[in-house]
């Protein structure tokens, strides 16, 4: 289903389109938003921008051509910025500055890439394949990689994610980073990419190095942010293999990761709010004081590592199967190394929380249902999406349909 609206600049139109890929992304956004909505109210500015970001995310999901995609993508970047600096501390403002510098540079590259592509091929809708100069694709990929937090341009993530309020961290990690990957997938959908060896190398490096850094980070939310960098690099890695099954895995990983990492960040927010815990080393006994929260945290961690039958495993399996089919051994190794690293940075948290003695005893302080339910729901979604992966209408089916629509 497509809808062509205004002509924004000569020969480029606002163009909306609903296909499997977009529907999957939009649905993910919608459900994740439902999860982050409960919780303490934070004022008019926050609520308004949160709603605006939601609309813009849907816009990214339903964009029907490159221009519309970029438009919503940039507006989303800007709308998210006040949310990141919502706490107004000096640290938050510094993080916001860095975030802006990164995403705007990325935006400039994207715009340049769009210009090059437009000169060569006119209005690039997502329905037809076009021939464009390699430079345009490279620029666009580079622009998207800023948001996708690939290694040399990942710098905003570890600063912005921990500093934002917990629901915003959840959205940033769950969806903002994903918009970059989503953009890359859209690119592959319409243009024949140049050899993607560089993308493979970069994303492989990102998976491994970010994972290693995460294992050595004590700040809980920052560790989760590094984990996002590492985990979301799976998607470009899957893209770069140029295999349909791997691509489907990459697409479904966006959805699965969104719920898992979103849930983890919400848990981190609850830990901070109710126990004042920011650092992994202070988490001893946290599970005894917040058993439900940490239970969800544990389950989500296991999902992220890729323990079957949770959803993280499904995406890893599908990506891996595609890589194996394509004979891409190195990406496959990287994929599994990433999972091992995920265990290395997540399991110590879980172990400390459940088994280590607490620094101080206290009563159980699991949050009230309205804030607890989203976390539990994220965990439940992780299970359901894992076990029911093959059901029709579930993300995997949509992702496969989307990948079928993509050549190459």
């Amino acid at each position, binding site marked *: 289903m497509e809808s062509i609206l205004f002509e924004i600049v000569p020969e480029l139109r606002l163009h909306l389109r609903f296909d499997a890929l977009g529907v999957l992304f939009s649905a993910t956004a919608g459900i994740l938003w439902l999860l982050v909505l409960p919780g303490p109210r934070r004022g008019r500015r926050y609520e308004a921008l949160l709603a605006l970001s939601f609309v813009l995310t849907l816009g990214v999901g339903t964009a029907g051509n490159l221009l519309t995609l970029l438009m919503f993508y940039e507006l989303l970047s800007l709308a998210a910025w006040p949310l990141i600096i919502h706490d107004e501390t000096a640290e938050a403002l510094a993080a916001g500055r860095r975030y802006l510098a990164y995403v705007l540079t990325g935006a400039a590259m994207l715009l340049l890439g769009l210009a090059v592509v437009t000169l060569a091929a006119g209005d690039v809708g997502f329905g037809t394949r076009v021939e464009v100069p390699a430079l345009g694709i490279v620029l666009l990929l580079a622009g998207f990689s800023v948001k996708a937090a690939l290694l040399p341009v990942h710098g905003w993530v570890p600063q912005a994610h921990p500093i934002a309020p917990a629901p915003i961290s959840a959205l940033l990690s769950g969806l903002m980073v994903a918009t970059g990957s989503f953009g890359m997938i859209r690119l592959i959908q319409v243009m024949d990419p140049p050899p993607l060896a560089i993308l493979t190398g970069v994303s492989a490096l990102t998976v491994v190095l970010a994972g*290693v850094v995460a294992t050595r980070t004590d700040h809980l939310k920052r560790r989760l942010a590094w984990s996002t960098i590492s985990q979301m690099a799976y998607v470009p890695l899957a893209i770069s293999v140029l295999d349909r099954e791997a691509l489907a895995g990459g697409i479904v990983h966006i959805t699965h990761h969104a719920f898992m990492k979103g849930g983890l960040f919400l848990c981190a927010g609850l830990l901070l709010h109710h126990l004042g815990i920011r650092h992994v080393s202070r988490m001893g006994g946290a599970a005894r004081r917040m058993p439900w929260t940490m239970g969800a945290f544990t389950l989500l961690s296991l999902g992220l590592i890729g323990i079957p039958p949770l959803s993280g*495993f499904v995406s890893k399996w599908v990506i891996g*199967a595609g890589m*194996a*089919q394509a004979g891409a051994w190195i990406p496959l190794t990287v994929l599994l190394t990433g999972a*091992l690293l995920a265990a290395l940075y997540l399991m110590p948290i879980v*172990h400390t929380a459940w*088994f280590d003695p607490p620094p101080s005893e206290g009563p159980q302080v699991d949050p009230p249902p309205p804030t607890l339910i989203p976390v539990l729901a994220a965990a439940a979604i992780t299970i359901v999406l894992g076990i029911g992966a093959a059901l029709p209408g579930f993300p*995997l089916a949509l992702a496969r349909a989307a990948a079928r629509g993509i050549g190459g």
Partner: protein
Amino acid sequence: MSPLTPGSVGRFTFTVDSVTIHFASLTVLIGIGVFVFALRGMSGPSGGGTARAAGGGRGGTRGRFLLTALPTLGAVLGVVFAGDLLTLFVFFEILALLGFFLVRQGDGARGAAIRYFWTMLVGGLVLLAGILLRGGGASGPGSVLLLLGFGVKAGMLPVHGWLPAAHSKAPAPASALLSGVMIKTGIYGIFRVLTDPATPEMLHATVFTLGLAGAAYGALRALVQSDAKRLLAWSSVSQVGVILTGIGAGAWEGSLQHVMTHASAKAVLFLAVGAVALRHGTVQLAGLGGLWRTMPVTFALSLFAGLALMGFPLLRASAGKAEIHHALEGVPSAEAVFFLASAGTVAILLKLIAEVFLGPARDPDPATRASEIGGALTALGLIIAALPLLHPALPTDMPYFVATFGAGTVLYLTWRRWGPAWPPVRIPSLPSGWTVPLPAPPGLPALPEARLQRAVERYAREIAPNLALLFVVLLAVVFVLR
């Protein structure tokens, strides 16, 4: 459908054939035995000191154990009945997680449990890689990785390191489950891989060699243990080696029979040791003795299980070992190593039974003397676990048994006479300032030097001797096979 098809996500398929039935029935039987034992053999919410000593851990252990053990059995059955590799893998990983909780319930089991977890995780990833490779059409490398992944679970030789620690630190019923049931899932996997026509021939020889090496090496390590549970754990390494030898050599029926034997006998022995610990609060051989008087049923069952494991010719259990042995005929060197392993097994079991149940009584604790082995339920649990062994058969392979028994007795007596007097191996501690100061990469915290120091010392103390021994055994095996 062969259980070795890769499968696809979200679709769970199951299959039933004679092999699955074999493994499943054994699982269920031993599971029942362990549960019955645990009803009495582990403390309830108000557990006292003896329960702690039995490896029961903190209060409320029984509930937690049952909560973990039941899904464990389910997962084992899932592995066994899985109709494709993906389904198998799902249950395999669940099993690994549950195993962590089983081990973690033991006292002082933190290190062992964590080690177990990481080993299983890496093993799982290797397995996953193998499955994906096989699915992608690379059958050869895929099979290698599959073997490695299953081998980790089974305690195959080069990747067995987690097993002695985990099995000896876990509470007794958990050890029985681990040794009796869980490592069998690994063996099940290896069995499936090697019986698959797509698997390269070369891997049979590899498994055979590794099995043989493991059999001998485990037996030797078991012989010098002074902790009953550690002894049994090393014996498990040895027995897994025996089974793998059989699978590698093509003696499949014998191997399956021996799987049954080992599962049952090892479960009984672990439970028996658990019962002893329940009464006497220790599993150190030096602190025990003369218990046949106070725990005759336990003694009898242990003896029975021990005989079965040794290959006593009047039991059906011996048939498996005999077949494995026959498969080796014509390869004198392999036969020699196998003989060494068999004799080692005899020596180990003699040592265990003799040190614990015979000799002068060392702990006449009046408070616990009254109850036999901690109640009828624990005894019943042992009996149920021993059921598979209660199957008489015509004598097979009598001379071989006599020979191994004789050699084993000599071995045990030798150890008895001189062994404890051997000075323990001492590793000189490293001179301080030995470590090289590593520059920390930017943005990362510096590697703490004390930790490095500890790691190196640990390597020197624990791993290096193992590696040396392993190397010698492997060298011998290779030499022999030529």
